[in-house]
């Protein structure tokens, strides 16, 4: 068996597969189900200050190569989330708490609460592509991102990961600003702005009209972002976007990711995808006499 352990900032993971935010992460029990399926860490649904219903249905469009979604950040709010964290933290893998907010102060407050609940790291959602005044609307402004990360840094002692959007020509600047503010890692990428129109109804299918594209269609975009980020910033990277097979995971790792996140593949292939990718990675390492996954991180760079 190849050694699949990896390190992201101060987090030691038994394997490089992390559950992406927004997938099965709203309840403690479902986080446990994903851990049982073999995830090396899990990211919670993004949590805000207050309970939030999200958008009305349809919130999802299925495509051949992925999904377009506009859930609208539904979540039970930080107070009620304590109970979900209590359930999830019973497991032995790190729980990464994801937060969204409109101001740096609120980000800091939420991150602090998640640390108190037992999160081993926080992921800042600076990239949801379809929520007014939240997510990527602030995540494309390097100054705002630096201020947010700095405020969060001052309120917690666990690692901070900034999840960034590809919907900007300033990704590198934003990433550098996050690092400047004290980010311990960069997560890239969130979904790409997208839309599907039903030609018979002659209208966008999603109730929010626009949404975010995920799944295999997104993978080449994500791999490129991680490759560029590896050359631009010195902090650990977590790759996300269309990982469904061990080959996909390896592409991200060779581009420079220390770990990868898995989301859409759970809907398309089922929870068995974690065990399947881990097995494939392990066999690849054995075949190629790679002792540690760490040797492969960034291997595609000269």
């Amino acid at each position, binding site marked *: 068996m190849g050694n699949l352990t990896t390190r992201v900032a101060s987090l030691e993971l038994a394997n490089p597969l992390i559950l992406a935010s*927004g*997938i*099965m*992460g*709203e*309840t403690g*029990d*479902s986080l*446990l*189900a994903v851990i049982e399926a073999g995830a090396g860490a899990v990211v919670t*649904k993004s949590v805000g200050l207050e*309970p*939030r*219903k*999200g958008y*009305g*249905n*349809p*919130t*999802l469009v*299925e495509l051949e190569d992925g*999904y377009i*979604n506009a*859930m609208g950040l*539904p*979540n*039970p*709010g930080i107070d*009620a989330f304590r109970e979900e964290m209590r359930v999830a933290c019973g497991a032995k893998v790190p729980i990464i708490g994801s937060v969204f907010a409109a101001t740096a102060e609120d980000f800091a407050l939420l991150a602090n609460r998640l640390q108190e609940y037992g999160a081993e790291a926080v992921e800042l959602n600076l990239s949801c592509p379809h929520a007014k005044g939240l997510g990527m609307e602030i995540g494309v402004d390097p100054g705002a991102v630096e201020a947010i990360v700095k405020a969060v840094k001052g309120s917690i002692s666990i690692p901070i990961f900034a999840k960034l959007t590809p919907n900007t020509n300033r990704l590198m600047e934003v990433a550098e600003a996050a690092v400047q503010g004290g980010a311990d890692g960069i997560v890239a990428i969130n979904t790409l702005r997208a839309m599907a129109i*039903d030609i*018979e*109804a002659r*209208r966008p*299918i999603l*109730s929010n009209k626009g949404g975010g594209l995920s799944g295999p269609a997104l993978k080449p975009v994500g791999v490129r972002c991680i490759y560029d980020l590896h050359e631009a910033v010195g902090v650990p990277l977590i790759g996300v976007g269309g990982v469904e097979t061990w080959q996909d995971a390896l592409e991200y790792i060779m581009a420079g990711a220390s770990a990868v996140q898995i*989301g*859409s593949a*759970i*809907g398309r292939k*089922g929870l068995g995808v974690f065990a399947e990718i881990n097995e494939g990675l392990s066999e690849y390492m054995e075949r190629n006499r790679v002792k540690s996954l760490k040797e492969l991180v960034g291997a595609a760079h000269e």
Partner: protein
Amino acid sequence: MVRVSSVEREGEGMCTIRFPLERHVKPGQFFMVWIPGLDEVPMTASFVYGEKGITVREIGTATKALCSLKAGSRIGVRGPYGNGYDVLPGRALLIAGGTGAASLLPVAEFIGDQKQVDILIGARKKGELIFVERARKQSWEVHVSTDDGSEGMHGTVVDLAKRHAQKRTYDMVYACGPEKMLAGVVDFCKEQALPGQFSLERYMKCGSGLCGSCVIGGKRVCADGPVFTLEELAKMQEFGGWKRDECGLRIKL
């Protein structure tokens, strides 16, 4: 999108919508039904052979809109989704509460042997009993109950099951209905030492196993369910007790 071929009243406040759809559907699976500009809602397939169908109880804006559709109207249909019932050989007992009959009649049609399936249908009152005649075509033993005694046995369908099962044996119980009723069927199965399959309902957003809105005890109703076994239900602390709203907050059933 599909073109609705018929909309028929089905008892008080309910209707059945039929539409052509060239996809294989298992009894117990469901569709995500889109009413453009309004909503998209999960609906159990009430007809899985020939023209597909859904049976809707008017409870909110979306379901009222569905029941006001006419032949020729267009709706979006995603799916089918979910595991469906695992219909096993042997004698089956179907226990339906309210619109739960919509999910179970396809099971009887799948079995296709009047001697091998007994069907119990319960509702609050006579006007809300559905698919009784359809059931009689599939089974020699069809019995009904109403909470107010206006038709069949006076009592719940769980009481009916207890009375009916005294003289018979079954290889599998299939049940669908309100969760409080299902909790009663679970107790019934335990008392009689019968295995059972139960179709559950939870607030659902994506319907595709992604978002986690419909999780109960770590299982996704849309992807791991909606049909769960007695053993799976035993591990779900919230079964019969509480569900979650659109925010994911717990609410009592």
